């Protein structure tokens, strides 16, 4: 008997390597990078670890493009590989690669050990990939945790700077509360519908008439709260300014761009696939949250003097705009959200890259004074920042305008015209603080540095640095203007940073390009929106 059992061949599960390949590339990269971090020589660790992290991101990008137009469920239906997951994956992987570039000279990656730092960035991105592909409440929670836990650590990687540790601890506590709330909500949804699979939940709600079931609605409310914590939607945003300000700036960039994309991706999939039949119940609540978020974010940003806090409040407001696309639960809404996520990546990368560059050049930190007079002294940094600010505010000829247009259009078509009006009013208010940054760059003289300027050990940064590339950027360099150059000697640690400036320029240029020729991003967003089959 037992012999016969042993002889019977059991079949292992079918594994779709193609569908898993982006996640495998990221996790495999994390393992290799972690081992490289053990190399004895410091310079080897820095160069090889960051280089391999970039290779892993490039591989994940390639795999994502390779899988484009796929539509399949993998890992026994736990994950779904479709254009929504792949489109958001493109955004995530680009954000991760940009983070590696920004961290190249960061103190954070050196203090935490380069291997660990980049491995954590890769792991977190893998978690986001799992999250946006989740088709099952269990893989949803798994993805949330896999993305959050490395981020808690990454926030605290500047071990000798207490604000960084503070931000890590705050994010850990708040994030855990958010995760717990989310899990509780998922458990209730399981209790009400008897399934963890998104499609099964959807059919249980539709056939069982559960749309106003108290247990289900309580579960949905708790899930909304949990996801709102992660995507910093007001009134669950209080951690955002503190954590964004304290975390190392490259990590702030990563959190602002990638976490938001992943959270909004799962918002789209969970609400527009699993809970779509209960839309009448949750849409007004989400619309209210979006409104609160837009108001709180835009009003909160008005009084900020720290650029990172300003961008954090701006992120809260932008989360509100993005939610509008989820509220209407139409394909147009999903398209608008994905389009705006891609645009959001570009403009935030441009803005944060400039903040990173100025932080290292001036020693003024992320205070708005760090960009004063930038238009005269560093036009190639001032332009990307200007474009990013105008695009975040939604000025025409930038991608932000097109994105907002789609969101407003989707809201109006979906019966939420008033939400479109809120977006417009919010954008108008937001001009007040975005233009303040622009004015500081172009209309104020650089920070008066007095005697320290002469004693600065880093004269003529742009032209004289041995790292300066003799490319187009270098030729537009003005001959070392009298003020605003160098900065206080003690704070100025870096000279010309080609990768940061290049990233800022590329992101700024792309923001303008997609503002004038939006069709490539529109195609991407349309494919993503069309993959949500239950919508019309």
């Amino acid at each position, binding site marked *: 008997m037992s012999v016969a059992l042993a002889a019977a061949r059991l079949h292992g599960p079918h594994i779709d390597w193609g569908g898993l390949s982006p996640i495998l590339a990221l996790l495999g990269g994390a*393992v290799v990078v972690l*081992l490289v971090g053990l190399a004895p020589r410091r310079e080897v660790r820095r160069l090889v670890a960051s280089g391999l992290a970039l290779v892993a991101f490039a591989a994940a990008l390639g795999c994502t493009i390779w899988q484009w137009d796929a539509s399949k469920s993998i890992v026994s239906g736990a994950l779904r590989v479709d254009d929504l997951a792949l489109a958001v994956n493109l955004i995530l992987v680009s954000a991760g690669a940009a983070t590696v570039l920004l961290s190249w000279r960061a103190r954070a990656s050196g203090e935490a050990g380069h291997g660990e730092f980049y491995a954590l960035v890769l792991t977190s991105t893998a978690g986001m990939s799992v999250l946006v592909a989740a088709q099952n409440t269990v893989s949803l929670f798994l993805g949330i945790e896999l993305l959050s836990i490395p981020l808690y650590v990454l926030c605290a990687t500047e071990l000798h700077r207490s604000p960084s540790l503070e931000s890590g601890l705050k994010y850990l506590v708040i994030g855990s509360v958010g995760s717990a709330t989310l899990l509780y909500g998922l458990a209730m949804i399981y209790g009400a519908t008897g399934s963890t699979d998104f499609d099964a939940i959807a059919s249980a709600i539709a056939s069982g008439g559960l749309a106003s079931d108290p247990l289900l609605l309580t579960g949905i409310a708790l899930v909304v709260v949990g996801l709102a914590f992660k995507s910093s939607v007001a009134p669950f945003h209080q951690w955002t300014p503190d954590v964004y300000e304290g975390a190392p700036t490259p990590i702030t960039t990563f959190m602002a761009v990638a976490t938001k994309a992943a959270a909004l991706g799962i918002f789209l999939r969970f609400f527009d696939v699993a809970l779509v039949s209960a839309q009448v119940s949750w849409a007004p609540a989400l619309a209210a949250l979006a409104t609160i978020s837009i108001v709180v974010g835009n009003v909160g940003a008005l009084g900020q003097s720290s650029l990172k806090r300003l961008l954090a409040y701006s992120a809260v407001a932008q989360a509100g705009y993005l939610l509008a696309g989820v509220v209407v639960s139409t394909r147009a809404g999903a398209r608008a959200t994905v389009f705006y996520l891609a645009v959001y990546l570009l403009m935030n990368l441009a803005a944060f890259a400039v903040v990173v560059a100025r932080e290292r050049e001036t020693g003024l930190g992320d205070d708005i004074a760090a960009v004063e007079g930038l238009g005269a002294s560093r036009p190639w940094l001032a332009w990307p920042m200007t474009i990013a600010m105008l695009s975040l505010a939604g000025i025409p000829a930038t991608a932000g305008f097109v994105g907002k247009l789609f969101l407003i259009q989707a809201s109006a078509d979906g019966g939420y015209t008033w939400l479109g009006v809120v977006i417009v009013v919010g954008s108008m208010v937001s001009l007040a603080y975005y233009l303040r940054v622009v004015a500081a760059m172009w209309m104020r003289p650089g920070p008066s540095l007095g005697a320290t300027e002469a004693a600065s050990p880093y004269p003529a940064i742009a032209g004289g640095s041995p790292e300066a590339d003799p490319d187009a950027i270098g030729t537009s360099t003005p001959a070392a203007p009298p003020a605003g150059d160098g900065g206080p000697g003690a704070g100025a640690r870096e000279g010309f940073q080609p990768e940061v400036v290049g990233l800022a320029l590329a992101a700024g240029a792309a923001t303008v390009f997609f503002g004038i020729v939006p069709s490539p991003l529109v195609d991407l967003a349309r494919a993503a929106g069309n993959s949500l089959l239950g919508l019309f």
Partner: protein
Amino acid sequence: MLRSYLPALVFLLLGGVVGLAFALLNHRLGPHRRVAHKQDPYECGLPSEVRRGFRFGISFYLVAMLFILFDIEVIFLYPVAVRVRAFGAFALYETIVFIVLLAVAFVYVWRRGALEWR
């Protein structure tokens, strides 16, 4: 009928013999130090009576965590080991991947000095 109990008997005997042999060897060959800690109920780990302000080293957590990590590994290996023929090459590859990943973790932990008591 009784013969089916033979393996159990052999098992018990072997267990007793091996256990006794190790205890005896330890007694004969091991060093003997007469210190107060030897009289404690638990010879290793935390002292059994501590004062209120007692703080114990972070190394305890680290070692305990690593122990669990590498100990649980075995639990996953047993079932595969029993049924590896039925699953064939698939199970073998999966196990190899699993062990390689754990080996990476082990090398990392070792090289970073987490196994040294501080």
